[in-house]
């Protein structure tokens, strides 16, 4: 990658660790370590909320998705602003006003210890696995791109993150998130500028080329439970998912519990409401522009260099023939793209568009053959989409900027992992250790245990990352596993806001919600995961309220 780029990456890693350690000076007690003594400004908390949600998968996977599938994924976030507003008037005042450390602690005050413990346990299992997979995603890509072994790749991202999170606590996490967000947005904007400068056609023509392949279709109003990304699944399913994630997941709740007041906590969430859709659209548009750029600059047949080497070694002659077909098809497509860019009147434009679409389909068909070859040779799904952006960055960006982008990918990974480690430590110490094992211990003791817990979760995440990456499909399994529980946990918090809801309704409602989602996943697998959140939440509230009404009557009779 070049010495200057590596110096930039190394400087970033060093700065994050040193700054994190510096932040630890003000952290002398557990409330400071986990909640920064509820003293952080709304804008820092808001940027931390955004940085936590924006992981390395967003930087490399979502841009790749933009290049191959266009911007329709933006619909996934259509429910987010509404969810933030709903949270601002419902859960945020409850949780911040209750002066709790964790969202689950509030559930014990409202219901009972077993509801708290079950939700805390589910959080710990889900987040421990997801933390590992969030670390695994960029580690696998770096491993393939830079020829590092996977454990080294995991350690380069994981160890600095564990150090600054363990030593500095939530202060270090939040202030690192702020800088990481600036770095991420700065790198994305710089890439857009480079793409526009290097593009051989004007931006309007570039958008026409992207549009001709359907990559600028942002809205799909089809109402179906079978499609992942439609307007309706985004608005309905997405709202429930975002309510669950931002309202009940400790990795997010802990961000806004550090705010100075309820109003500042609400305002911090509204930063995401303002900027999430525009930012996500920008990330996807970067991918779309990379796609257009590769109409004029020959892209590799396979973007993953490690898999390409394996295919060449195993089926060299066949792959070389495929590459030749690819080069010919690319030349034809480039000519068609230039003709489309030059077309002026509507009739010529329509003809050029049809010719371009035919050429694009030919190129796509050859790439599909190459990806099938990868699957046959390696025995695993290619996931080549995750390598489009890194390959573009390393091959096409000027010196310095590619280092900046790689640092931004690391920043995106570290900001998410740090917040998750911090929240895992909080839940394990507050909801389990302090609640069940050592309720009377000193603040100093809890602070020491919290730091140890952060380190233990960090090393477990590194272990899971190495293991998950080898299994490959585990990442999808974990994501699916998470969507089984999110909606149901949201349902418990919705019950908490209904005065007549009883503890028995909350606990058994939660179990009923998870069972219902499991049944839908088993018997109606065509229903996509976004709807699981709606189903889970509604079943918990329905069953929970029914039990709450039934149980007092039985008690009265007894």
């Amino acid at each position: 990658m070049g010495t200057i780029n590596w110096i930039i990456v190394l400087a970033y890693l060093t700065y994050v660790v040193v700054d994190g350690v510096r932040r630890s000076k003000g952290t002398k007690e557990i409330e400071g370590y986990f909640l920064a003594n509820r003293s952080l400004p709304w804008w820092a908390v808001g940027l931390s909320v955004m940085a936590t949600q924006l992981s390395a998968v967003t930087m490399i996977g979502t841009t790749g998705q933009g290049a191959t599938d266009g911007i329709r994924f933006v619909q996934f976030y259509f429910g987010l602003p509404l969810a933030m507003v709903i949270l601002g008037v419902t859960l945020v005042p409850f949780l911040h006003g209750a002066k709790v450390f964790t969202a689950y602690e509030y559930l014990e005050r409202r219901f009972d210890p077993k509801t708290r413990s079950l939700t805390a346990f589910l959080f710990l299992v889900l987040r421990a696995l997801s933390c590992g997979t969030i670390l695994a995603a960029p580690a696998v890509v770096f491993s393939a791109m830079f020829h590092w072994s996977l454990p080294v790749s995991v350690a380069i991202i994981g160890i600095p993150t564990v150090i600054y999170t363990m030593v500095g606590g939530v202060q270090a996490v939040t202030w690192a998130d702020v800088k990481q967000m600036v770095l991420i947005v700065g790198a994305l904007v710089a890439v857009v500028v480079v793409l526009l400068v290097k593009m051989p056609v004007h931006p309007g023509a570039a958008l026409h080329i992207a549009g001709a392949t359907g990559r600028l279709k942002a809205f799909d109003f089809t109402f179906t439970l079978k499609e992942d990304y439609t307007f309706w699944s985004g608005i309905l399913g997405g709202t429930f998912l975002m309510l669950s994630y931002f309202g009940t997941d400790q990795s997010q709740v802990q961000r806004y519990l550090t705010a100075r007041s309820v109003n500042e906590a609400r305002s911090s969430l509204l930063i995401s409401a303002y900027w999430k859709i525009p930012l996500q659209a920008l990330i996807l548009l970067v991918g779309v522009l990379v796609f257009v750029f590769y109409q004029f600059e020959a892209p590799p047949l396979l973007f993953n260099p490690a898999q390409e080497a394996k295919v060449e070694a195993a089926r060299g002659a066949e792959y070389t023939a495929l590459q030749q077909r690819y080069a010919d098809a690319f030349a034809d497509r480039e000519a068609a793209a230039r003709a489309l860019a030059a077309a002026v009147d509507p009739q010529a434009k329509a003809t050029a568009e049809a010719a371009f679409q035919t050429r694009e389909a030919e190129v796509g068909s050859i790439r599909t053959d190459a990806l099938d070859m990868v699957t046959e040779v390696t025995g695993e799904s290619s996931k080549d989409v995750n390598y489009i952006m890194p390959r573009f960055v390393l091959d096409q960006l000027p010196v310095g900027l590619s280092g900046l982008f790689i640092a931004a990918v690391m920043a995106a990974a570290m900001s998410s992992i740090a917040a998750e480690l911090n929240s895992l430590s909080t839940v394990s110490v507050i909801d389990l250790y302090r609640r069940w094992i050592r309720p009377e211990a000193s603040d100093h003791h809890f602070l020491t245990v919290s730091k140890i817990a952060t380190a233990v979760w960090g090393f477990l995440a590194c272990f899971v990352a190495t293991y998950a990456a080898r299994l490959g499909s585990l990442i999808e399994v974990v994501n699916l596993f998470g969507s089984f529980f999110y909606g149901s946990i949201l349902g418990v918090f919705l019950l908490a806001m209904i005065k007549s809801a009883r503890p028995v309704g909350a606990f058994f409602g939660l179990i009923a919600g998870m069972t219902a989602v499991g049944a839908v996943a088993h018997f109606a697998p065509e229903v996509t995961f976004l709807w699981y959140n709606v189903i889970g939440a509604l079943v918990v509230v329905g069953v929970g309220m029914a039990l709450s009404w039934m149980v007092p009557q039985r008690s009265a009779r007894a």
Partner: protein
Amino acid sequence: MDPSEDTPPADRSMFRRTLVRVMIVQVVALALLWLLQARYGG
């Protein structure tokens, strides 16, 4: 616990104003995406 009891009227009014601004930004963002699709989406 009723959280609205702890929230001063000035805070509630500020939140309402922010809410209106958030919704305006979302409408503008969605309109721009719609424009992109209608103009270039084919």
